[in-house]
């Protein structure tokens, strides 16, 4: 068997996991506070985005990937954003949403 450059060290994974659990508890607690619906959705989505970023960067190892992986991710999210903006520009204009 060849020697492996990596030794098993779960420290970083455990730190990320603890952060994810903390953010989950935080988002449940924050849902209890009395704010308008729009604000509540924005807060919940911000926490969810932070959690998703932690998973993408550390669990899915984007931090170790070449630049092209990050560009692909950016293009994908931007395209999704365009879909949302275009759809809502139509619905809001018509007074449906």
């Amino acid at each position, binding site marked *: 068997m060849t020697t492996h450059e990596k030794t*098993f060290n779960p420290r970083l994974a455990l730190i990320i996991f603890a952060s994810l659990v903390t953010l989950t508890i935080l988002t449940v607690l924050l849902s209890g506070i009395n704010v308008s619906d729009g604000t509540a959705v924005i807060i919940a989505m911000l926490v969810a985005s932070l959690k998703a970023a932690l998973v993408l960067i550390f669990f899915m190892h984007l931090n170790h990937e070449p630049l092209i992986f990050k560009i692909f991710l950016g293009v994908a999210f931007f395209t999704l954003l365009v879909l949302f903006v275009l759809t809502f520009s139509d619905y809001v204009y018509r007074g449906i949403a």
Partner: protein
Amino acid sequence: MQRSLLVSRWEVHVTDQAHTVEHHHDEEGTRLGFWLFLYTELFLFGAFFLVYAVYRSAHVDEFKIAAESLNTTLGAVNTIILLTSSLTMVLSLDALKSGAVKLAKIFLITTILLGLAFLVIKGFEWAAKFEHHLFLQTASGIAAGEGSPLLTPGPEMLPNGQVLFFGLYFIMTGTHALHIIIGGIWMGLVYYWISKGSITPDNTGVLERSGLYWHLVDVIWIFLFPLYYLVA
């Protein structure tokens, strides 16, 4: 000119093949291709999230009333379960890369079991909804008189916003659960391949990609959880 260039390239290619003993495999290219597949998944769920966003903004109050019938505790427990399974998946890959095959297998089987636990809890949640006459209806089912009185036009029918909420709830959590099942089967195969010796500490690509898939399914749940269980 162009033709001779093509031919000479082709010849080089043939010579290469004849002289290369080991099969060439581009691990990074494979991974990039897998990320492209993951983006198709992103757009599958992205479309669902878009439909949810439009209908929610059109029926804010109805969505909140309907969301209150979902069990936040079970949703939160399932979130923690999936996060834990993502952790064990990462640890499985780390363990295998460091040569600890047995440890990698233990973490992998833990990941599969956590996925199963998620499905069991999801099953109880769905069963509770079925008991309250909330389920996915088919057009033929409605025509045969098997539709729910709460979801089909009639005196007992819920307001449109709530009908839309439950329809989206079943479609989105159902599609997500399907991904959990596919991920579980894939990890089962990976476990078998590790046992058989075709996935080794020097050849971890398949485990790595099944991990990427599993983490993506986790990311989708990270967004589903607040949208269905929290903003009530």
